[in-house]
């Protein structure tokens, strides 16, 4: 706690008074593969402002309480997708979650790694399986016909079809909140289907048939049980379940 005081002591005295500090506890599920056989909880007392991000709080723990705390982060404003965590039981980006939304003065914030992927250390999980299923859906534009000298023409409405799915930042909040993914990692998962959606509904893409075939496999869309956890978890507000349903329909009408 001494360090926390140091932090505030640099600010002008007047400001210090004007600013109500919340005294909160952060309970973090820690795991060090080189020392621990099992994950364990550790609690830190932190002073935070209501408007601070949970990521600020976690940084505070790392910088002034326990340097070994490990997690991913980069952009600090919800665009890079690094810091998906289970905060108070819900998948969220730590940098897009404010303290005041998850804790009151004297309250506790619990932070755990996202589920369904192997925990490597503390809040950091192995992302390889996630990116493997991303790569399995041919996540790239395919159009082998000769390109025109300028752009390919696409109407505003056609471009709008991709608006939601192309918003994805691959943070894995959705996939790691899906109950089907938890029990069976072979399910491609909502994030990959969102990515597939982006290309299936791109009027310029020529590989629609192949993409639908991938979605039609037993690791694809038919695994989805419309649980909606994914939609609720997405920090970019992508209506994921709706997009998955659109892909299901596309597969169905395509094959019929």
């Amino acid at each position, binding site marked *: 706690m001494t360090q926390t005081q140091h932090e505030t002591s640099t600010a002008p005295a007047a400001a210090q008074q004007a600013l109500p500090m919340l005294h909160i506890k952060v309970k973090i599920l820690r795991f060090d593969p080189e020392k621990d056989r099992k994950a364990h909880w550790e609690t830190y007392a932190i002073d935070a402002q209501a408007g601070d991000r949970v990521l600020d709080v976690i940084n505070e723990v790392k910088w002034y309480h326990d340097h070994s705390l490990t997690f991913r982060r980069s952009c600090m404003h919800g665009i890079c997708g690094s810091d998906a965590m289970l905060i108070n039981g819900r998948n969220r980006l730590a940098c897009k979650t404010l303290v005041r939304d998850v804790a009151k003065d004297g309250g506790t914030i619990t932070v755990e790694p996202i589920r369904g992927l192997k925990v490597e250390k503390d809040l950091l999980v192995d992302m390889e399986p996630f990116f493997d299923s991303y790569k399995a859906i041919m996540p790239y534009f395919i159009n082998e016909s000769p390109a025109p000298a300028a752009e390919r*023409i696409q109407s505003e409405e056609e471009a709008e079809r991709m608006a939601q799915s192309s918003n994805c*930042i691959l943070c894995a909040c959705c996939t790691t909140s899906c109950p089907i993914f938890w029990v069976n990692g072979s399910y491609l998962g909502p994030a990959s289907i969102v990515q597939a959606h982006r290309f299936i509904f791109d009027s310029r893409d020529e590989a629609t048939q192949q993409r639908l075939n991938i979605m039609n496999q037993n690791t694809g869309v038919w695994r989805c049980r419309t649980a909606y956890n994914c939609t609720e978890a997405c920090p970019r507000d992508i209506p994921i379940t709706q997009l998955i349903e659109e892909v299901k329909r596309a597969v169905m009408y395509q094959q019929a």
Partner: protein
Amino acid sequence: MQHRYDVLVIGAGGAGLMAALYAAKGNVSVACISKLYPTRSHTGAAQGGIGAALGNVAEDHWEWHMFDTVKGGDYLTDQDAAEVFSKDIIDAVYELEHMGLPFSRTPEGKIAQRKFGGHTREFGKAAVERSCYAKDRTGHMILQTLYQQNVKEGTKFFNEFHVTDLLIEDGRCRGVVAYELATGEIHTFHAKAVILAAGGYGRIFKITSNALTLTGDLMSIYYRKGLPLEDMEFYQFHPTGLAKLGILVTEGIRGEGGILRNDSGERFMERYAPTIKDLAPRDIVSRSIISEIREGRGVGRDKDAVNIDLTHLPREVIEGKLAEITDLARTYLGMDPVKDLVPVQPTAHYAMGGIPTDLNGLCLSDGNGGSIEGLYAAGEQACVSLHGANRLGTNSLGDLVVFGRRAGIYAAQYARQVEFPDLPDDPQRDTKDMFDGLRSGSGKENPALIRKEMQESMMNNVGIFRNGPDMEKQVEILKELKSRYQDVNVGDPSLRYNSELIEVMELGFMLDCAEAMTASALNRTESRGAHDRADYHTRDDVNWLKHTMAYKDLDRPGNVLIGYKDVALKGFTRAFEPKARVY
């Protein structure tokens, strides 16, 4: 462990991915090393757009774009680079579209374009629609599209590998050394050509729009070899970052009619730029805001911000065209731009300077045409000097794709012609020494405090307004911080995912960048573009129409040697005479 590739790309942002893609097209083996998963790179944060004279909305020509770039850069821009850029960017944008980038569209189905600060028609007559955009997430779409294409090409990625050293001997680059976060293992990468594209270093400042990971690693590594960094004094502060957080509020918010107001509600830009008011260039608006704050007319708890007022705009405009920033204001400040004033303050945003390169991306070893064979650089971390003393909005994404592509092409061409050079005897020695040093410090100092002091003092002393005494003070502060840095200690002994080790290492890199910036800024006794000195308040073309080259003094730690490089005042077919920069 040792790896061998013809071409190695360091960094997987827009510049790195573009370079990797075009190198791979050149029939050589390519690997890309990045300390982040590629889609986590900060290119994804860019909102506004990428400028190219397509003329989809209004008549436009590359000459006009070239002129705007040169004038925007306060004539420190190399005009040959500006000419290559303004021509190439047109094809590059079409190529991005052919890669599937989901651009917003015009009613005719072409790539949509909009106005942006400093982009004009007929050499400054009126604003022109030049910025090609994909909603307000152009950078995100560029990053995703380029990564997707690399997946398609099968580029080999080494993700979460931190490059710690460049292997340069006898003026020839032979590869790099990298630290694998997952295992703690040190890897040697043997290569014929290396392309550096590791992004900016905005984290040396307290308030910044840059990611926590933008710490200038490769600039510092280059600089530690006694090689020069160019134009480090030119650092752009974006006028509108969310107060305290520094999260960027796009220039488009003023383009749509947003008004800056001080504590009494006065539209203060009327005093600083009577004709174009809130739409003045970035450096001017930033300085005006800071003046208001310094004179006690700021808003907020610490009176260190001003308000941006959108309340007079219709709700549809705010929630439609400015959706992203509306979301940011609501998420982070709990404020609704529809009815609340949003507090903003200038935020450290973009490095105009960096590793000097020629037009093909080849890294320069001095100001007289010397170069490092086999070493290329592109992106924010490089300085072809396209942006001169001040970058125009949308020209950075353009820089990434144009010069990333060129670096890729020329590196592959070079790699096809040469054999693998020999590796130095003990390639990992310096890296191991560095880590040993970090692990064996006395541990008296907390790196987080050193970082905080650096960020605050850089903000105050080498920020938007500069003057000699402050910067002299900063030189001493940095020396002190550097000596305290010797006493940090990495307490976490683990090998796997040792993020503490990484953070401490990055702090060391940042201190170097800060040192080079401060020395370069102190040395330049004029005001130009983003570099504004109270004690030398005018532009001085007679003495200072030249690039700064800052070298680390390898014999006297903490000192910086300054050299110079000429500005290319002519393009290949066009040239623009330096004139006073008025808008």
